């Protein structure tokens, strides 16, 4: 079972989030906390030191009452493929101690808490603020340590953490596949906790390279876009919105530019 060491990503797990469906309920966030042993503090109102592997950002169209619109934008780690899809995501290339890498079998960007020594360079590199720092030692009051999952190691103070697309679920699914002497995973065998928890099924997850997976088609939807595509970070999280202002918020445009026209250019390039 030799695994290819060449730099071609066999599977590229990715996500498509339908913003028209997302109601901003936050179930993805809570499910993620519970799944990934994300700690909480007494005060979590400073969102800049609050650990979230997926954040639901509230955007508004800035128009006055009653023409105001809001749109919720769930933002996990984008698992960037990087410029030219070579795995040089913004964060991986800067980490001085190889505490984060790009897995060419899944396209998932790891974060190894025990390797990380907390220089925070990756956080500076990530334009999505997907990476979070453990400013404090995690504390689970009363008997709350009992609900910690053994599948994800709790992080110590002083290291960076981020969304892993619930890689441990991939591992557990693979263990099961080994037991059943199967080589491949079914689409539904590996789904991150947030996707599974979404009560309105706004999130779809699968292998972007696999035509049998739902995300394969969805990512080509006419209203699909990715965040900050122009930076060539090549995120693997796609969004769908029927609202033009939402799509425009997903990237930066000069006053005379519009999302639609540029996107085709970006697509042609990759």
């Amino acid at each position: 079972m030799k695994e290819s060491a060449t730099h071609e990503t066999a599977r590229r797990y990715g996500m498509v989030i339908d913003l028209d469906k997302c109601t901003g309920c936050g179930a993805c966030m809570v499910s993620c906390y519970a799944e990934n042993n994300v700690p909480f503090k007494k005060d979590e109102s400073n969102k800049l030191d609050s650990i979230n592997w997926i954040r639901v950002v509230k955007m508004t169209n800035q128009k006055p009452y009653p023409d105001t619109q809001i749109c919720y934008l769930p933002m996990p780690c984008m698992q960037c493929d990087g410029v030219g899809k070579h795995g040089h995501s913004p964060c991986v290339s800067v980490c001085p101690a190889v505490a984060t890498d790009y897995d060419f079998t899944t396209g998932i960007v790891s974060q190894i808490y025990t390797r990380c020594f907390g220089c925070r360079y990756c956080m500076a590199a990530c334009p999505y603020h997907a990476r979070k720092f453990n400013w404090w030692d995690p504390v689970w009051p009363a008997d709350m340590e009992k609900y910690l999952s053994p599948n994800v190691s709790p992080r110590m103070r002083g290291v960076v953490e981020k969304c892993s697309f619930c890689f441990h679920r991939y591992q557990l699914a693979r263990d099961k596949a080994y037991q059943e002497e199967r080589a491949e995973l079914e689409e539904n065998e590996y789904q991150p906790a947030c996707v599974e928890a979404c009560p309105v099924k706004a999130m779809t997850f699968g292998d972007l390279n696999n035509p049998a997976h739902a995300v394969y088609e969805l990512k080509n939807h006419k209203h699909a876009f990715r965040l900050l595509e122009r930076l060539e970070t090549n995120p693997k999280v796609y969004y769908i919105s029927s609202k033009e202002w939402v799509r425009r918020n997903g990237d930066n445009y000069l006053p005379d530019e519009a999302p639609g026209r540029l996107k085709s250019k970006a697509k042609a390039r990759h």
Partner: protein
Amino acid sequence: METPLIPPGVKRCPTWQFALWMAAVGAVLLWGVYAMILVWWKGLNQTNMNDAYGFALWIWADLAVIALGGGAFFTGFLTYIIGKDKLKGIINYAVIIGFICYSSALLILAIDIGQPLRGWFIFWHANVHSMLTEVAFCLSCYFGVLTIEFIPLILENPRLAAKPFLHHLSHNMHEIMAVFAATGVFLSFFHQGSLGGVAGVLFGRPFAYREGIFIWPWTFFLFTWSAAACGPCFTILVTWITEKITGKKLVQQDVIGLLAKIAGWMLITYIIAKSIDTLYWALVTAPGMGFTLMDFYTDHPIYNIGILFAEIVLCGFLPALILITRRGRENGFLLILSVLLAVLGCSINRWVMVLQVMAVPVFSFESWFLYSPSWQEVATTILPVAYGVILISLAHRYLPVFPQEKELNPAN
């Protein structure tokens, strides 16, 4: 009778005065040490940094002192490699200032990381693609070089020099100093550059990202260049301050003049290159990512467009033009004003390239990320300053730092 500690033929202040001075600076140092221990013991929650603003005050201080410590390598380069013998009048001091700057930089890094006891992973598990790895390696190596450059000077303390072994060691080290100077130049070129690369490679951060050549963004070269330009300015500035405090002329004015002239030319070429880089970035790179220049500035007192003007014109072209003109250099006030401006300019550049990068929102729906340091951060940033003052005081008192001192200040 023991050999005296103070070099012969120079006058030093009375012990009590020196002790008082040391006590005052020592108090500041202790404050810094207290803050440092707090940060180590309780963690980085003692700072006001946050997930958006993950690099803050002391990283700026780190970059700034490394840039300003660049006086050591560039003066060494001029002295030992180009053969500007005249600069031997200031090279010792340049080395000491460099040593202080680099040791401070390493200390700051040890405070800044979340897991100091794992800091050595940067060497052991190095990622060769990371600019920070390059910084760490070159920084440590160059610090070693600076230590080697500093040792012979320490050994020249009269009491140490009295021992034949140490005396000869010192002498022999002097002989091969050119080799170390060359090594230092090589290492400095890379780590100063890598520090520029640290911000320049961040292609997710349009404010910082610069195009470049091969793996090196233009900031790589600009940082080296500006360190070579502003490092000597800092050496001149510190020398001037030392002269003011001791009330003595320590270095001949023509030595200062020569260094200032070279620094001036470095500065003018640097600032022209920097201007071209800025223009290209503002007109080509950033718009390609959907940003106009003014997207990067706001009406905040610090993050407004004035900072660009201050960096390039006020603290760039102005001091450069003064320094390259003879009349400007020879006017004591203008000389000091311009080296001060150059030092400021370099510090602003480091601030902008690291901290403003954190502050600028990348998404149109985000607002600016603001931050002000906690007292622990301020204290740990002042700590190296106090440490530097102490080291300079000791060095000046007990070591023959300025070869021209005796000549410039004949005894009584």
